[in-house]
């Protein structure tokens, strides 16, 4: 069961500000999702390996060659706030 407290915690970790109404809605919806997975749990998966990836691919690797950088102006162009050459963010703690 997912409680409202769990939703508060997840919201905090996701930096989401939720209204009381939204919290109730998400608690309900997340429980519905869990219910669906409980249904899937009825399948016998004893001999099935956990899925690491849905595509049948492995070892996609590149050689260790440095390439072109993007310009700093392009990098900073979309950020909400900057201080000269830096991204500027709210205090973290």
């Amino acid at each position: 069961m997912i409680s409202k407290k769990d939703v508060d915690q997840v919201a905090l970790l996701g930096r989401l500000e939720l209204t009381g109404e939204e919290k109730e809605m998400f608690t309900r919806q997340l429980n519905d999702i869990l219910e669906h997975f409980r249904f899937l749990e009825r399948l016998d998966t004893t001999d099935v390996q956990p899925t690491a990836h849905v595509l049948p691919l492995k070892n996609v690797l590149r050689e260790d060659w440095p390439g072109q950088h993007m310009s700093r102006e392009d990098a900073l162009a979309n950020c909400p706030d900057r201080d000269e050459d830096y991204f500027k963010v709210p205090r973290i703690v």
Partner: protein
Amino acid sequence: MARYETVIGLEVHIELKTRSKIFCDSTTEFGGDPNTHICPVCLGLPGTLPVVNKKVVEYAIRAALALNCQIAGFSKFDRKNYYYPDMPKNYQISQYDLPIAEHGYLDIDTGGGVKRIGITRLHMEEDTGKLVHQGTITTTPFSLVDYNRAGVPLIEIVSEPDLRSPEEACSYMEKLKAIVQYTGVSDCKMEEGSLRCDANISVRPAGSSKLGTKAEIKNLNSFRALQRALSYEVERQIEALEEGGRIVQETRTWDEGKGVTLSMRSKEHAHDYRYFPDPDLVPLVIEKEWVEDIRRSLPELPDARRRRYVMEYGLPGYDAAVLTSTREMADYFEDCVASYSNPKAVSNWIMGDLARLLNANNQEITACRIKPRQLASLLELMEKGTISGKIAKTVFEEMFASGKDAGVIVKEKGLVQISDEGAIAAVVAEVIASNPKSVEDIRAGKEKALGFLVGQVMKATRGKANPELVNRLLKERI
């Protein structure tokens, strides 16, 4: 017997010396103006995809083999989710339940002999960006971020809780550093941040097999900090228990200035990383053949080299340990011995005068202006009696400063040892004549006075007189 036992496990992060980042082709070069070594991938811009740098996997396997780990046949990357802005994506790509390597060990020397320390796992991950604060992290109004280091490849090496004292923890770190440096995958420079360490530490009543509650100590940026922080923490925890209190499981940071560890309570609730497999990266299937190729390319490692120095060169265990502590110093030693076959003499000079000058000048042995072959020829000049041991030290300092050959310096400065008996006898006669008091003292049995007269002769010859000859002549004439 001590009433408490300390239990320590270390988590060590090591930056790999690749040219490009782990998931993109941005450079890993140190420094650079803020936010210039970045691209859409390491900035986590929508629509970009990470691709694993093959060299990172190779280096991780290389370090893991040197640490006696078993290499996984199947490995994958996971997302570690958290909301600090040191990663632009809001997650760090790391490895969770299927790391590239597990079950290794390394051996450390303790007062009670060799002790084997288990290595739980070694995994690959990306480094984070750098946050710049105004003032401290808790009082700054905002933070500035530089993402140049975001995406630089790291390996994290987690030890078993096998360490029993701050001293053992330091030995473990030193050994780990030496081994990884030998493999060539990292510089392992703590002062530049390419080697970093967090410690889990707890205490428990002696004889108990149940682990006490641990604290995680961060910000251990030097061997000194590691030693001091752990010693402080042992005392703090014992004191708390003695007073009937209990240890809180928490993250603490080492404050170098105050010499204490401080609680970082604010980080606690963030410890829910919600790992899940990164859907942007496909799994790694490591072929045995590749692993064996890498194993074959490993150099002789510190322990083996050290044993060989004792067996092959007849060096004391202590010398062998110091000389093999870095690959560069061991190489230097062997290059010297190749042209001057008195290993103990070479060892003395490297561990003594050379180490002292390198330290005083904050210089690496690879940058030393005295090349191994030049040190060898200095030792030869001494052995042949061309210069005295005392003059050799002066010549050595000059060589260190100028990089000139010993022979050139000796010639330029006229430092050739005077072994001509007639020439020395004349000086000896003069010294005897002008120091009647000392001569009397010697005759009265005061041996000390002889040293004074030897000094006078050396002074008059500017240190060039052959000391054995001086001693003999003085004794003959008094």
